[in-house]
């Protein structure tokens, strides 16, 4: 299992375009990819769930990736979220 603690860096948050791009990225991997934030546990391959939870800038999240390609997927997704700028 791959986990990473991340603070959402961008102004938009995991919303709108960044959310769409994140879902596209996650779907490229076999592993299950979840974002935990407080009580919430969000499947990062679901645009509807991701938008419904509205993770905004500075939200502290935990990325949890589990599956065959978890190492590769985990680092790619973590890197993607950390480098969001808009």
């Amino acid at each position, binding site marked *: 299992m791959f986990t990473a603690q991340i603070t959402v860096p961008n102004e938009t948050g995991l*919303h709108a375009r960044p959310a769409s791009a994140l879902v596209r990225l996650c779907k490229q991997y076999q592993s299950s990819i979840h974002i935990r934030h407080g009580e919430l546990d969000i499947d990062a391959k679901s645009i509807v769930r991701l938008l419904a939870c509205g993770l905004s800038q500075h939200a502290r999240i935990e990325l949890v990736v589990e599956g065959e390609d978890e190492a590769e997927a985990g680092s790619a997704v973590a890197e993607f979220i950390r480098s969001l700028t808009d």
Partner: protein
Amino acid sequence: MKVIEGRGAAPGCVRAVVRRCADGAVSAVPRTVDDRQAEAEKLRRARADYAAALSRLRVKEADGSPAADILDAYREILDDDVFFEPVVRRTLSDGLNVDFSLLREARETAGLFAQMDDPYLAARAGDITNVCDALILRIQGAVPSDLSAPAVPGEKWVVFARDLTPDAALRMDRSALAGFVTEQGGLTSHTVILARSLGIPAVVGAPDALEAAVDGETVLLYGDTGRVILDPDEAALAAFRRDRDGAEQLQAACDAAMIREAATLDGQRIHVCVNLGDSGADLPEHCDGVGLLRTEFIYLGADHPPTEEEQYRHYAAVAAQAGGREVIIRTLDIGGDKQAEYLALPREANPFLGCRAIRLCLDRRELFLTQLRAVLRAGLSGNVKVMFPMIASLKELREAKALLAQAGAQLRAAGTPFRGDMPVGVMIETPAAVQISDALAWEADFFSIGTNDLIQYTMAADRMNERVQYLYDVCSPAVLRSIRTVARNAAIAGIPVGMCGEAAADPLLAPLWCAMGLNELSVVPAQVARTKYAVGRVDAGALRARLPGLLDLDGAEEIRTALAEIQREYQTMPGSE
């Protein structure tokens, strides 16, 4: 005659016939099913079907077009397995019909989004509803309204719907599509985006429109005011003809002017460029470049001083988009009313007379050098020029140029490629710069007159202060004489002079700017066509002879009256004769 008042969402007015599109009013009643597997399979098949339908529409649309973005957004929801999973689960566990389970899931989720008081999520709520409704209709075996061909050749439709799904809209024959009226939908809904991209009027939030309208009857649609007139009487039709003639004349004339280079009747070429930098607007195809690229937003939108790399990427992207067309990058104009936390600028009693723009940059040299390096590097991506704001003395210009040279030396030392001979311009926006424009002209490669600040500083009047707003007038003789002085001094030194304030886009003033010999007018993208049109109507040489008399008039009011006369004479506004 019936009149419905909705909200104007996409501009224009049109007369056409009503075409009702009653899709979308879906319902489903719960019932138990025998074969649960087969029931769940219906949803899978509906999703596959709908995905294929969206793909067929998608291939016809260019990447990045509004229609493509809409279809992609729908596809994204349709492909969300996690969202549909509970619907399938419920069907399998409870034995409920899948259309009902889906309807419930869709309404719950959309309701959740709609509560969140966020226009983006409100629009997504509409998308989720639309996608699920389309699926429910498919599961129920309903045939979507066929709007693919008009009944009578040449007939134009205004489509009435509860809330039009984009795929319904995109299925329509666009040559028949003249407008939209929807009962629901906000100003940011996809119907609106689509109408704007098709250039047709749309009215949203029109109560009971679907019920009031009858297929085939005449409708007058006013996309600006939101008025919908069904089965109009003779007076309404006559009023419509007058409105339409005016709007059509203006549109046709501007469309024709838009695709041409702007030149006066006597052959003086005027570059019509755009101001960019805070709206994120794109560079229009038919303009001569970016006459003013503001850079403040890069600084104001960040929580740290933007790095050279961040700035370079932004500038280079604009330069590349412009192709060979010029891009004038104005260095940071911050201070005054625009602040950034991380700069920790001290409060000033008179920020507009304080340490702003070039003054700040000459004080914070590292900040300035970082920007200058980014600009110099972007010079290799297109026809980039640099411009310094708020110059009030020759010394400031020389210092800024010395720092530009220093930034170049730093890049050279680091082995980073950059453009070494970048043209340097001065933004003329202080009375001081006007007075020494003869001297500045010998040391600058071009001028750009920033009228917004120039008016404020020349008249010593804050445009936001209602009690002195009457003084803030570009037509004040003091302001116009200043602009003439700058234009003359530029001409003597043989450098081009442009204008990038709001006054550049005023059709009343365009004849004046041509007569004064301005080479470039930089306006907001939406004003490019009108500005080009106005320029094309003017005989600059003939007007030049009238300039002294005009600028000798007593005040702004007299000058405006005289300019209105000139505007009528040259018909610089279509339909203004």
